[in-house]
């Protein structure tokens, strides 16, 4: 797998060893290469430096061909999920000082098709998300003001509304790896967001779409998604909630 790792591109800033760090980045242009290779870059350290800052240093000072996605740099837009030292993380909220003194390995999210370098094709991820119909399906006409929802009802969906669609869980799920049809943890978490929403009027219909081999019953409860989530959400718990509801409905006729 690894070629071209010997060359180290150094930053223009001349700094002592203690003042720099090494980012070992998986490079891959599928239109030109059969397999990825690694390239190591030396980047000046400073307090508060994030992996995303390091990638920008490379892009702007060392190698303008580096490809990655980013935007908010504050862990809310979900653009910069990638594999850092073996684990899926948001590059923008991963501080270099938290990763020890060694070389930092940066790779794209696993499983997904690489477009170039750290940028992966997220179309299958968003397609799964769109399949769960991620919008409120209300049965009654909208009132003149707001639909009422008590604080406890609102709390029931609190966790799921925090999902930033970064795809870390999806890419880390080994069931997703083996099944193209499986909705995956993110879509199921968001499906649960609507099933648990007191305002949604299509819970039965939603469960019909979810309670099958492509949906909740495919989950093997491996918790990869829980480990992967940079927002500390628990998609497995959502899937279990849906499973419980679907089973109850099967037994009693009511969810």
């Amino acid at each position, binding site marked *: 797998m690894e070629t071209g790792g010997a060359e180290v591109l150094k930053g223009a800033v001349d700094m002592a060893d203690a003042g720099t760090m090494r980012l070992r980045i998986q490079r891959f242009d599928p*239109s030109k290469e059969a397999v990825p290779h690694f390239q190591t870059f030396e980047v000046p350290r400073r*307090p*508060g430096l994030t992996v995303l800052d390091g990638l920008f240093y490379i*892009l*702007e*000072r060392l*190698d*303008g*061909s*580096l*490809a*990655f996605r*980013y*935007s*908010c*740099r*504050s*862990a*809310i*837009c*979900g*653009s910069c999920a990638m594999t850092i030292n073996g684990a899926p993380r948001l590059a923008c*909220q991963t*501080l270099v000082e938290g990763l020890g003194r060694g070389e930092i390995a940066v790779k794209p999210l696993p499983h997904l098709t690489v*477009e*170039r370098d750290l*940028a992966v094709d*997220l179309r299958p991820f*968003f397609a799964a998300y*769109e399949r769960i*119909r*991620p*919008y*409120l399906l*209300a049965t009654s006409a*909208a009132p*003149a*003001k*707001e*639909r*009422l*929802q*008590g*604080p406890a*009802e*609102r709390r029931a*969906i*609190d966790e799921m*509304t*925090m*999902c*930033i*669609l970064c795809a870390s869980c999806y890419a880390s799920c080994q069931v997703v790896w083996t099944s193209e049809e499986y909705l995956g943890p993110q879509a199921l978490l968001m499906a649960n967001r*609507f099933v648990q*929403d007191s*305002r*949604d009027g299509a819970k039965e219909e939603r469960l019909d779409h979810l309670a099958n081999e492509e949906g909740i019953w495919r989950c093997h409860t491996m918790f990869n998604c829980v480990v992967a989530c940079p*927002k500390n959400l628990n998609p497995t718990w959502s899937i279990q909630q849906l499973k419980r509801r679907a089973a109850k409905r099967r037994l009693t006729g009511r969810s």
Partner: protein
Amino acid sequence: MKRHDILVVGGGMAGLRAAIEASQSADTALLTRLHPVRAHSGAAQGGINAPLANAEGGKNDTPEMHAYDTVKGSDFLADQDAVELMCQEAAPCVYELEHWGTPFSRLPDGRIAQRPFGGAGFPRTCYAADVTGHVILITMHGELLRRGVTTYEEWQVTRLVIEGGRCQGVIALHVPSGELEAFAARAVIFATGGAGRLYSRSTNALHSTGGALGVAYAAGIGIKDMEFVQFHPTTIIGTNILMSEACRGEGGYLVNRLGERFMQRYAPKAMELAPRDIVSRSIQTEIDEGRGFEGGFVHLDLRHLGKAKIMERLPGIRDICQHFLGIDPIDTPIPIQPGQHYAMGGIDTDNDGASEIPGFYAAGEVACVSVHGANRLGGNSLLETVVFGKRAGAAAAQHVKTAGAGVDIPAMERALAEERGRLQAFLNSSGPENPAGLRDELQRTMTDQVGIFRSREGLEAAVRKIAELKQRAARINIMFKEWRFNLDLVNHSELPLMIELAEVVAQGALRREESRGSHSRRDFPKRDDDRFLWHTVAHRGREGPVFARKPVRITKWKPEERKY
């Protein structure tokens, strides 16, 4: 060539709202630089204003009170008919967001919760904890999916095509593939957000470069009130990530090195909930006069709010502090300083988002209606996106129904060819200057000389520096020479546009010899309604911006002294 009746550019809240509206009666497509769920609207934390009169203590709130607060907050530069309209439409627009499924935080009786915000007479800010923008953005994107609106993702607009006095469409670059394409449309709506990255210290996303605003300016569109730049009082040191106004709305204190709640000196009644321009100046004054902490910051202290309230109302704030500062605001004050946050200025539009060019519209932060005047109130930006996004979408749909002429296809083909040539030449650039270095110099100049406090001396230095950068930007080097996924090309092709926008901001600030709202001149510390109660409009001339004045529309409220 792609063809649609209406092309909405920008996938944040304003763009989504415009696309949802326009798609009801016209063939509409949405073109975005990022996937819509990545838009910077999602970073909005504190909330969206509407006089719902839900909260205890807010029962007497009305659209008129909301409008008055907004006009006063704007330091009387907002157009009052536009403000009244926004505040009238605020409640219906927020209810609509709720009907679409937005998970607002709730009062015990199930109605939408509201919190106090700066410069507001009542608790008027509807919220979802401290991730309001995020949950609204995701909800609106769901609404877009429900309606099946065509979306072009990861396209960056490089040129706005105006021919025969009408808007004909845009030329855009698909970032992953490097494909350049013409998008012909009988109406184009820009909803491309802010220009925070003109500054080194900004809360804005890295993509908030103002590039599309620069594209409109380069096409001859007038841009208004660009000298009014909002600095948010509370951004964390180092990254300048936003600490929501909700921190203070929920009761947080601002404290200097001496342990004083220094807002006592500057806004004894409103204290920490004075409008942002005033709070930012107060913090900067404390720092400048030596009462800040070493490193140039003061403390935002939430400790007295207690763990339960912080966990419930400000979980995102806590998350950011833990990840980016390594502190927990439950037991440690947050080191903050002011940072660029919002562009009050933008594309000069009327109350329907229409620019001076038939068929070209703008909404949201990229537009200047103006509802924010010289200083925006917190919670009014999200409101502006939905009210004016909707209005622009409706107006564009009406335009394509009534405007007879179709698109000038040969003009679009010519523009595409020209643009390909221009970008190819840009790609071939191999001069001595590093474009990222020039951008850094530009950002530092803007923060240092065109920041919270301004003076003739500093602004003149900035204008000279910007002129120098303009020259040097003609001699940059692009390292990577391919079209596909070329961030070097995509990001740095915006640099000349950013420099020109900075030129408009700095020159506009130099010309405005008064202090009004966010524009604070040390050499002209008073507001001067006799000389400056007007909007600045800049058009691109051969040698730089050409400035003109536009009257401020005043309906009910005569300018008065602003006290809090």
